C-alpha cells in the first residue's frame, strides 16, 4: 500500500552499540567448515567485526542507556517526550511491553503514549509510520522511536548461517512535526505466508521452550542451532529481497514523481554487502549512494541498521544540512517498506557505546 505524510521530520538520531566487539576470524573455529571456505565467505559477504552484548543485557538496558545520554547531554528534555515507540523482536518480557519497562525505569511522566511493535529489519520504516501517525494528535509533540534488538542472545554461535552477521544495538530517533510541507511518500507490503523464512520457533506460546527445544541439531549444512534460536532460510530471504525490493523502490519513486538521480542516498537495511550490491546493480544505483558497510563494522542489528548506516556514513553532512533520502527495510514477517523523505539538518547525530 502507498502511504503519504507531510510536515514530519526526524530531528535527531542516536545509535547505541555494545562496546563488546567480536571478529569473524576469531569465531571461525566455532563453525564446522574449513577455514578457507569461511574466509571466502567473509570476503564476499563483508563479515569482519560485529558488536554483540556481553552477558545478560536486555533491550531496555540499551534503550535506557541511550535515553539517559540524551537527557544528560541536553539533546532531549525528560518531559518533552510524549510518546515512546519500541520496535523489537527481543523484548525483555512477553509481558509487560518493553516500552513500559523503559518508561518505568527512567521515571518518565504518566502523560505518555507507550507502544511496542514486534518488527525487525523493516522496523525503522514501520516505526516512522507509527510515529508520524501519532503526531496527528495535538498532545503529542515529540516521539522517541526506539529500535532495539539483542538477537545475538537467541542465535547459535555454531550457526555460520546467522551468527557472523548478527549484531546487537539500539537507535533512538526523535520524531516531530516540521514546517516543511514536502510530501513524504512511503509504501509497505507484507506477506505472512512466508513468515517461517525468518523465525525463532520456540519460546512463545505455540511452542514453549523446553529442554527438547534447546537441543542443537544440524540443519543439513553443518550449522547447529536449536529451536530456541534464530533460524534464517538464507536462500529464501535472498530471493525475497531481490524479487520484492527493486519493484518497491521503483513504485515509490514513480509515485513521488522522482528520478533515481534526484535521490542523494539510498539508505537500506544492511543484511550483508553481497545482497546490497546485487540490489544496487538491479536498481542501477552507484555503490557510493548506497552504503553497505554496516555489517563489516558492527553486524546486522535488524531495525537498527538504517540509523547506524546514517550515523556512521553521514553524520557531518546531516548536522550541517539536508539530503533527500530513500529508506528501505525488509525482513521478518515477511515485511518490506520504503520511504522517501528529506533528512536533516539534525540537532544531533551520534554513536555511543554501551559498556561491556
Amino acid at each position, binding site marked *: 500500500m502507498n502511504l503519504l505524510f507531510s510536515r514530519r521530520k526526524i530531528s535527531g538520531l542516536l545509535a547505541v552499540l555494545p562496546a563488546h566487539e567480536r571478529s569473524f576470524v576469531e569465531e571461525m573455529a566455532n563453525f564446522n567448515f574449513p577455514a578457507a*571456505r569461511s574466509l*571466502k*565467505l567473509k570476503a*564476499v*559477504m563483508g563479515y569482519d567485526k560485529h558488536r554483540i552484548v556481553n552477558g545478560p543485557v536486555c533491550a531496555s538496558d540499551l534503550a535506557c542507556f541511550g535515553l539517559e545520554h540524551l537527557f544528560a547531554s541536553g539533546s532531549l528534555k525528560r518531559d518533552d517526550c510524549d510518546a515512546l515507540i519500541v520496535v523489537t523482536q527481543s523484548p525483555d518480557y512477553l509481558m509487560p511491553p518493553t516500552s513500559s519497562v523503559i518508561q518505568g525505569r527512567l521515571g518518565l511522566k504518566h502523560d505518555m503514549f507507550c507502544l511496542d511493535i514486534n518488527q525487525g529489519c523493516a522496523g525503522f520504516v514501520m516505526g516512522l509510520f507509527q510515529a508520524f501517525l501519532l503526531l496527528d494528535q495535538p498532545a503529542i509533540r515529540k516521539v522517541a522511536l526506539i529500535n532495539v534488538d539483542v538477537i545475538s542472545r537467541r542465535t547459535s554461535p555454531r550457526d*555460520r*548461517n546467522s551468527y557472523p552477521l548478527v549484531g546487537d544495538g539500539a537507535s533512538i530517533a526523535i520524531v516531530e512535526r516540521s514546517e516543511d510541507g514536502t510530501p513524504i511518500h512511503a509504501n509497505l507490503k507484507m506477506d505472512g505466508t512466508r513468515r517461517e523464512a525468518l523465525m525463532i520457533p520456540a519460546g512463545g506460546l505455540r511452542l514453549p521452550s523446553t529442554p527438547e527445544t534447546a537441543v542443537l541439531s544440524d540443519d543439513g*549444512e*553443518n550449522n547447529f542451532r536449536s529451536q530456541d534460536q534464530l533460524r534464517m532460510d*538464507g*536462500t529464501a530471504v*535472498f*530471493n525475497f*529481497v*531481490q*524479487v520484492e525490493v527493486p519493484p518497491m523502490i521503483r513504485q515509490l519513486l514513480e509515485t513521488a514523481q522522482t528520478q533515481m538521480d534526484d535521490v542523494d542516498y539510498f539508505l537500506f537495511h544492511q543484511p550483508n554487502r*553481497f*545482497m546490497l550490491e*546485487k*540490489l544496487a*546493480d*538491479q536498481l542501477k544505483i552507484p555503490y557510493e549512494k548506497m552504503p553497505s558497510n554496516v555489517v563489516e563494522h558492527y553486524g546486522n542489528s535488524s531495525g537498527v541498521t538504517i540509523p547506524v548506516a546514517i550515523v556512521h556514513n553521514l553524520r557531518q553532512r546531516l548536522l550541517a544540512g539536508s539530503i533527500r533520502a530513500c529508506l528501505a527495510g525488509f525482513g521478518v514477517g515477511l515485511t518490506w517498506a520504503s520511504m522517501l523523505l528529506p533528512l536533516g539538518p539534525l540537532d544531533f547525530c551520534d554513536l555511543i557505546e554501551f559498556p561491556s
Partner: protein
Amino acid sequence: MPTIAEILKDIRPEADFTRSHDFLADGMLDSFDLVTLFSDLDKAYGISISGLNIVPENFQNIAAIQKLLEKYRQP
C-alpha cells in the same frame, strides 16, 4: 580466464563436480557456497549476475551455469 569447473573446484577442492547433475541434492554446494560461486563468476567473467537469477535451478550443474552465463555474453 578460469573455467566454471575450475571456479567450482576452487570453492570445494574435495568435490568432483563433473560427476554430479545436481550439486545441491548431492550435497556438493551449500547455500553459502552459492554466494561465493556467484561472486567468483562475476569477477572471472566481468559481469554482474542479476540477483533475480540467483535461484537453485541456475546452479544445479555445470550445464545450467553455462546456460546462465550465456545470457550475459556480449553479442
